[in-house]
């Protein structure tokens, strides 16, 4: 297929996934902010930590200054100054969709186009903090509909595989960053302190990747910080874990190389990262430093993105 079309499909999926991730981050901030303040004597600004997770704190400060709920919502959901705001994600996604329409099924196009039309209506009237959940639901549903349409209607060919690559790269990046922002509350010494606020923090991490209930099904025990990390990093049955993303990335890169009859740096790098995730246990990772591990992972993930671009998309 045309490299430009593959590139558009790849970014289309990345941006839809990014919009959904930002929606989840905002959702968690909203829930946490409605907890009684200074639980355990610690005051936290959940809106600020939402900003840090989603990225772009410095730019936010330059434009808005204080991390008030209204400012953060505006910045993450609607701001034109923020290239990854939900609004901008859907604008960019739709632009990509338009330029690659003939490679999309009509269901996928309609999912993107109607979400884009719905979101434009929201932008017109500024939403209040209490309207946020309904807005975020809309975003999550748009992403589900897009993804569901892709899975149910696309031919299983290179167009499908490139769109999957975009989705899993973005998802892996997001999960790693969610963990990294909160890594300090996952550290074993903090676990000893325990207390309500930590519990809510751990639950919030799980919730931001839709894994709170899954946790119970996998471990059958109370929240333990290292198990939270285990679930999100190493467990392949958890669909947003780093291991699951890399299983999918390796698989779809192999699909492509089988179809084309050649493989390259992208396949090698994906396989190497996947192997690192399957041959580790969580104690190991904590011993070498969770933060360092996550930083390395994010860098590797970016490198894979570059490798895919160089090999196929330009």
């Amino acid at each position: 297929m045309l490299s430009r079309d593959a590139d558009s499909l790849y970014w289309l999926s990345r941006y839809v996934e990014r919009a959904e991730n930002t929606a989840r981050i905002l959702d968690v901030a909203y829930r946490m902010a409605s907890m009684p303040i200074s639980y355990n004597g610690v005051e936290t600004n959940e809106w600020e930590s939402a900003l840090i997770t989603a990225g772009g704190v410095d730019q936010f400060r330059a434009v808005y200054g204080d991390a008030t709920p209204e400012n953060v919502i505006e910045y993450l959901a609607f701001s034109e100054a923020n290239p990854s705001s939900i609004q901008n994600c859907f604008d960019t996604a739709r632009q990509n969709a338009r330029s690659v329409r003939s490679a999309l099924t009509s269901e996928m196009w309609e999912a993107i186009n109607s979400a884009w039309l719905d979101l434009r209506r929201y932008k017109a009237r500024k939403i209040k903090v209490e309207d946020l959940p309904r807005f975020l639901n809309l975003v999550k549903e748009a992403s589900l509909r897009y993804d569901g349409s892709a899975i149910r209607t696309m031919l299983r060919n290179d167009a499908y595989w490139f769109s999957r690559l975009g989705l899993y790269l973005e998802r892996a990046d997001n999960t790693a960053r969610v963990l990294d922002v909160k890594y300090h509350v996952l550290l074993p010494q903090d676990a000893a302190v325990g207390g309500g606020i930590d519990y809510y923090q751990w639950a919030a991490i799980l919730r931001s990747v839709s894994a709170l209930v899954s946790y119970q099904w996998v471990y059958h025990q109370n929240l333990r910080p290292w198990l939270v990390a285990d679930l999100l990093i190493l467990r392949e049955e958890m669909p947003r874990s780093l291991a699951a993303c890399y299983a999918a990335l390796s698989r779809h890169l192999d699909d492509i190389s089988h179809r084309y009859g050649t493989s390259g740096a992208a396949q090698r790098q994906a396989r190497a990262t996947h192997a690192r995730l399957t041959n580790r246990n969580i104690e190991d990772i904590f011993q070498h430093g969770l933060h360092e591990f996550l930083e390395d992972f994010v860098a590797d993930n970016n490198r894979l993105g570059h490798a895919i671009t160089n090999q196929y998309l330009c």
Partner: protein
Amino acid sequence: MAAQAIFDEMSGHDGESRDAYRILQDWLKSAPPQLLEHRREEAELFFRRVGITFAVYGNTEAEERLIPFDIIPRILSGKEWARLARGLEQRVKALNMFLKDIYGAREILRAGIIPPELVYLNPYYRPQMHGLSLNSDIYVQVAGIDIVRVDDQDFYVLEDNLRTPSGVSYMLENREVMMRLFPELVGMQRIRPIENYVDELLGTLKSVAPASSPWDPTVVLLTPGSLNSAYYEHSFLADRMGVELVEGRDLFVRDDMVYMRTTEGPKRVDVIYSRIDDDFLDPLVFRPDSALGVPGLIAAYRAGNVAIANAPGTGIADDKAMYSYVPDIVRFYMGEEPILKNVPTWRCRERESLSYVVDNLHELVVKEVNGSGGYGMLVGPHATAEACEHFKARILAAPDNYIAQPTLALSTSPIFTEKGLAPRHVDLRPFVLTGRDGVRLVPGGLTRVALTEGSLVVNSSQGGGTKDTWVLSE
């Protein structure tokens, strides 16, 4: 009053239902009043959801807009179509022979039928095409000929579109919507299908592939990109044909061969269905500032390694100054009288015509020779005295740039409005495909309709709408 003289496609001159419309009219009488309104809303929803939009230049507010669709079909009898089809084939054949001649032996100039300066000073004349022997002798593979009528006798050609005519996607989508919304009405009569247009187009394009290409040549559709007003159509046609929709940056030329950049590396391209103006095709040959084109494309074309449809340089045959010579062109090459009439045209480049035109502006339609899309034209009877004066100055400053035609009492066809059915002026753009193996024509075309009462301007860029066009089988 002129209104009495206007011919209506459904009810003729005298209000009697014309044959082709009888079933429709009976059906309209028996249909419950809300039904039409309801179906109209459904149609709009369909177009909006599928994203069939049209970008209007210079209008950032409504960057993407729907072309209004009217649910009352326009109907032609089999007999009417047969005559129209013969005329279209004759005209397009002659225009292709004219182009081959102009870029070759130039017999028509030597015969003194066309003033040479109309060719050589024409901004669409491409000296690069001179002496080039095309593999197929076909210059215009896809033509859109705009047809109007003033009574049930004659069809007039209003304009030939021989560069990158658009609108065929609306023709196809309109039919799809009508079949979805009015299955009972569609089933009541024998409407000739048009769905094979896309196959015919692909067949036509493959037929003109260079001799050196493989038995199944690679065809691509070249678009200026997603900001172009007809982008929807480009992606629609590429999708239905199953060919890649490429932009200039997706193609490159090496050793006079054209390749596209794919995820599997470079892939050879044999036929380019170009929806880009000549001017932008190749910055090495035409406009050097073009970022839309492909450097080296014309060299590859001249080397015979790629076919471009329509050929560069076809614009000399469809500008409004050349238009008035088309009947002579038909006679010269075909040795026949033209079946389709031309609208009488005053060429402002001729002194007597010029003085007639400036004295009678209020009765005439004046068009810029190289304008399109309804831009840069004056409709005298609907213009203010001030606008006429202003236009007069423009004409006198550059008479060669203008032609004028009488305001025709274009036929009307009923549209569905809030107050029921109402007549509006229509035209018709049938699409004529010409390949190495002959002319292909699907029965129908795009009917454009002026939505404002009394308006004669049907262009979608000026607020016109479209209708489905039915050709009945005999």
